[in-house]
């Protein structure tokens, strides 16, 4: 069975991006496969009725049985079966979409959960690499001389940057770790002092280069060197530190030049040891930057978690209205 298709009317870019990300990274939490349709007829249309044009379109289509109309609203609307409340949140969307797809499956007996599961059996790592390859090809056409793509992984000390690169790299990673002699030694015995390096082979000879920065702030000069030419940024925040949200502010600040024109995703690690602050607080803080930067819980030892982060980053690059600039390039 084909995935259910969804289109939107009046939703912001950030909200649409969140939908795309959920369809990609949280596919294992969805009971059905979904895809966003930019044009043509979709199975479901989400209307943000705060937008006058979207409200008009909803008014015209609300009585039709197909497509299924979903209203996005800040206020409860009685007597409407499918109302998605603002602000759009991951925790809210997944059960909503599952309820909707289950209801649609009951309405259409041909819909088969088994075939939906079949669709999800694709290797997510291969899929990610294919999408990265497509981004690379587009960027090569744009940049000409750019031969490889480069992503930067930065963040707090002991957040798991080296581990994330080790988890996902196709080559044995290159490390520059030395014994820690200061307070970091409480968290771990060794610490990165220059860089971590890994690679993803995308096919056709293209490579995605993964650079990890040292986490200790005295090594921020390395971050400034390593971020040159990066296509995007993954920031890992250790939730055990005293003020993780201040850490988030810090990395958004030092990579301001990179992320203004590029893509950034945030992974929160060690939540099993420090569950607070919750992801909702990260989301609220990220909203203050007025950028569609998503945040995910991450265990850097789990390949699926790291893939989800990269998946979100690629989704941002794919959904950029204009090609993202490459930091450090005119």
């Amino acid at each position: 069975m084909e995935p259910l298709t969804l289109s939107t009317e009046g939703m912001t870019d950030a909200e649409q991006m969140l939908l795309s990300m959920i369809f990609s990274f949280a596919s294992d939490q969805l009971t059905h496969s979904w895809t966003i349709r930019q044009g043509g007829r979709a199975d479901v249309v989400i209307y943000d009725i705060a937008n006058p044009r979207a409200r008009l379109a909803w008014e015209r289509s609300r009585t039709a049985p197909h497509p299924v109309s979903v209203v996005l609203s800040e206020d409860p609307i009685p007597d409407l079966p499918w109302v998605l409340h603002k602000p759009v949140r991951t925790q809210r969307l997944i059960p909503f979409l599952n309820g909707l797809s289950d209801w649609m499956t009951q309405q259409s007996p041909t819909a088969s959960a088994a075939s939906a599961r079949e669709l999800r059996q694709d290797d997510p790592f291969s899929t990610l690499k294919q999408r990265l390859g497509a981004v690379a090809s587009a960027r090569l056409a744009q940049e000409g001389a750019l031969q490889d793509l480069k992503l930067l992984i930065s963040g707090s000390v002991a957040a798991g940057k080296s581990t994330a690169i080790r988890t996902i790299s196709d080559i044995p990673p290159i490390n520059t770790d030395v014994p820690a002699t200061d307070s970091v030694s409480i968290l771990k015995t060794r610490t990165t002092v220059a860089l971590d390096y890994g690679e993803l082979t995308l096919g056709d000879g293209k490579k995605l280069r993964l650079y990890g920065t040292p986490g200790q702030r005295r090594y921020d000069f390395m971050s400034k060197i390593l971020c040159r030419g990066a296509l995007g940024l993954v920031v890992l925040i250790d939730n055990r530190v005293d003020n993780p949200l201040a850490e988030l502010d810090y990395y958004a600040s030092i990579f301001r030049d990179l992320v203004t024109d590029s893509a950034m995703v945030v992974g929160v690690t060690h939540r099993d040891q420090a569950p607070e602050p919750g992801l909702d607080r990260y989301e609220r803080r990220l909203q203050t930057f007025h950028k569609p930067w998503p945040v995910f819980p991450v265990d850097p030892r789990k390949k699926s978690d790291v893939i989800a982060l990269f998946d979100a980053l690629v989704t941002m690059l794919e959904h950029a209205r204009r090609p993202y600039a490459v930091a450090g390039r005119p």
Partner: protein
Amino acid sequence: MPLPDDHEAAVFARELDQYLANCEAVTLAIVTTPDGRLRAQRQRGAYETDLTAVMGSSLMALGDTILAELRLGACDTVIAESAQGLVLFNHIASAFVLVSMTQSKSSLGSLLSWARRTADDIAQGLPLDKTVQSTSA
């Protein structure tokens, strides 16, 4: 941040004083931990030393990593050269890094020799494992 113990501090002070006394070309000498914490310095100027110590640790680690990648053994010295001078980075056993600077480009040989001797003398004054640890995984 723990302070170096008295014995360690005394060794650093004695050997760096000797270094500057014996090698006229050296204008700055720094001892740093492999993770970039400044432990001692002597200089004939007013150079910034904290960040130099941090950068020195990065370069030493990169030197170790590159040589390990190329299977060329442990890194003894990293040399950074410009039209204005030279900076050398040496291991002090496996526990510290010695950063040496000169503004005399013709003094590379002298600086290399005295830097190695100073690194060895410091190492002998400290209870260290002299095996240089590779940083490459």
